[in-house]
């Protein structure tokens, strides 16, 4: 029954479709002729067509209605919703990038925390482990002195000086030294590094370098070890020579690139006298350090070069170290140093990346 109804309905619909298309002249020639033949014989079909035609004409004759008001767009109508079209091409890309970085921010924060903690733990372990405890303060000091130029190098070019300070604070060992470093200009940092290098190269070599290109390093090299300290300080008041490094490096050779300076200092494999250098690095001359640090701010210019005093410390150390003949613990300490420096640097890089990520996210 239902099916029959539905079939009848669909038949009616098919009929209406034919009639409707016929009214609009949308039937094909064959279809039109067939329908007209049927209409001629079927009065019901004719009545349907008439009713349909009347309906359509009633709709067509509906009076046109005038707009009851103006639909002029006001500024607010458009402004409220328009921001979409125009800035779209510009906004779209950065926003997707922003989303990516925003997602990275918490992750970087976590990574920074983990690495910083590890760094602290390793440092603490280094300090507290029996046997090497006495030597601890020197390497730590050295490490910091090496790190600081690195901080400056990384932070300064991006203009991150101010923020770096806060972010470095969480790792307690760096706290006392770090705030000074980031404020420096990148050039200063590089200069310092060069200074350190020159100084390093000069310090362990008892004989003058073969072909000194510049006067100053030559003089230094010829000086007695005791005089070196002064010479280095002098050097730092003058601008460093980028060229002075290469000719004055009698033992460095290929490893003497600027980027590798800090690392080279930490792992002086190519050096002629590795033991001496590492001794220099490790010598626990705490009393010697203290006066140096306190002296530093007094020296106007050096005060600007924050970390320099600590680096200078490294230089006088070898002399004393040599005298004391502290060769033994040195070999065991090297991996520690590498680990500490690596962790420290990683923490700094991560810190920097985290700051950036949060900044971008805040924007």
């Amino acid at each position: 029954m239902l099916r029959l109804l539905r079939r009848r309905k669909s038949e009616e619909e098919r009929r209406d479709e034919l009639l409707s298309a016929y009214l609009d002249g949308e039937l094909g020639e064959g279809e039109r002729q067939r329908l007209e033949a049927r209409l001629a014989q079927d009065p019901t079909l004719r009545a349907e067509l008439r009713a349909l035609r009347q309906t359509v004409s009633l709709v067509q004759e509906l009076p046109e209605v005038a707009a009851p008001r103006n639909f002029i767009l006001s500024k607010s109508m458009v402004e409220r919703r328009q921001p979409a079209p125009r800035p779209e091409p510009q906004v779209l890309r950065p926003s997707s990038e922003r989303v990516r970085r925003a997602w990275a921010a918490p992750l970087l924060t976590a990574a920074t925390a983990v690495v910083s903690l590890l760094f602290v733990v390793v440092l603490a372990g280094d300090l507290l482990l029996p046997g090497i405890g006495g030597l601890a303060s020197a390497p730590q000091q050295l490490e910091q002195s090496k790190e600081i130029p690195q901080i400056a190098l990384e932070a300064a070019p991006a203009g991150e000086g101010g923020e770096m300070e806060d972010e470095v604070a969480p790792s307690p060992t760096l706290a006392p030294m770090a705030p000074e470093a980031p404020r420096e200009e990148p050039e200063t940092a590089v200069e310092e590094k060069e200074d350190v290098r020159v100084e390093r190269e000069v310090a362990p070599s008892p004989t003058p370098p073969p072909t000194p290109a510049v006067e100053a390093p030559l003089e230094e090299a010829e000086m007695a070890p005791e005089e070196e300290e002064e010479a280095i300080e002098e050097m730092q008041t003058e601008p460093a020579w980028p060229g002075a490094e290469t000719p004055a490096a009698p033992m460095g050779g290929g490893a003497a690139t600027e980027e590798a300076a800090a690392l080279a200092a930490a792992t002086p494999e190519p050096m002629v006298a590795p033991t001496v250098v590492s001794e220099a690095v490790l010598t626990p001359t705490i009393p010697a350090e203290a006066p140096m640090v306190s002296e530093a701010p007094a020296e106007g210019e050096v005060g600007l070069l924050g970390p320099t005093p600590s680096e200078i410390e490294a230089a006088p150390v070898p002399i004393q170290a040599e005298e004391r003949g502290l060769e033994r613990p040195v070999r065991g300490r090297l991996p520690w140093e590498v680990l500490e420096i690596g962790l420290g640097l990683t923490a700094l890089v991560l810190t920097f990346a985290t700051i950036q990520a949060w900044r971008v996210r805040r924007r």
Partner: protein
Amino acid sequence: MARRGALREERDEQSLIAAAQRGNRDAFNELVLSYQDQVYNLAYRIMGDPASASDAAQEAFISAYQHIDGFRGKYASSFKSWLMRIVSNACYDELRRRKRRPATSIEDFEMDEEANPALVSEFEGPEEHAERQEMARVIQTGIRSLPADQRVTLVLSDVQGFSYQEVAEMTDVPLGTVKSRLARARGKLRDYLRDQGELLPIQYRLK
């Protein structure tokens, strides 16, 4: 002469469209003024009441302004169908929204065509005018009883006079669908008018 006038109008419209595409709101408002009656009329016939029609018309003009960069037509007629397409889409969206959340109030069924002086023909006596108004009301109610897609198709075709092909393009459906939707809409409307029977003025009764 008339043709030259039409040509100039078309050129004016082209420059208005171009200005609007550069973000000139005043230029776009010129277009609004010249099309608002047609836009409102289409919206009114689809929606069936003045308030909804006004909302849909305003919505459509805002949408047209926001998307005018997408209009690439070269002729005035294509701008009209582009605009009408936006209007019918706005109406269709609104109808579907209502279907999901029906909120039919008595006011929705009140039509105030009578209040519109533009509808009074000077060749009509008051009685004829009243009959015509009554008939329009009945037909409008009949249109409102149709499903949204049939309603839009019927209005575009029989009220606006667009061809099957144009309606197919405007509603994004195949030609055959337009044909069957239109046939069903007309058939239902015919049945509705038949049911009204004697309520209709004599000359409007279906024979």
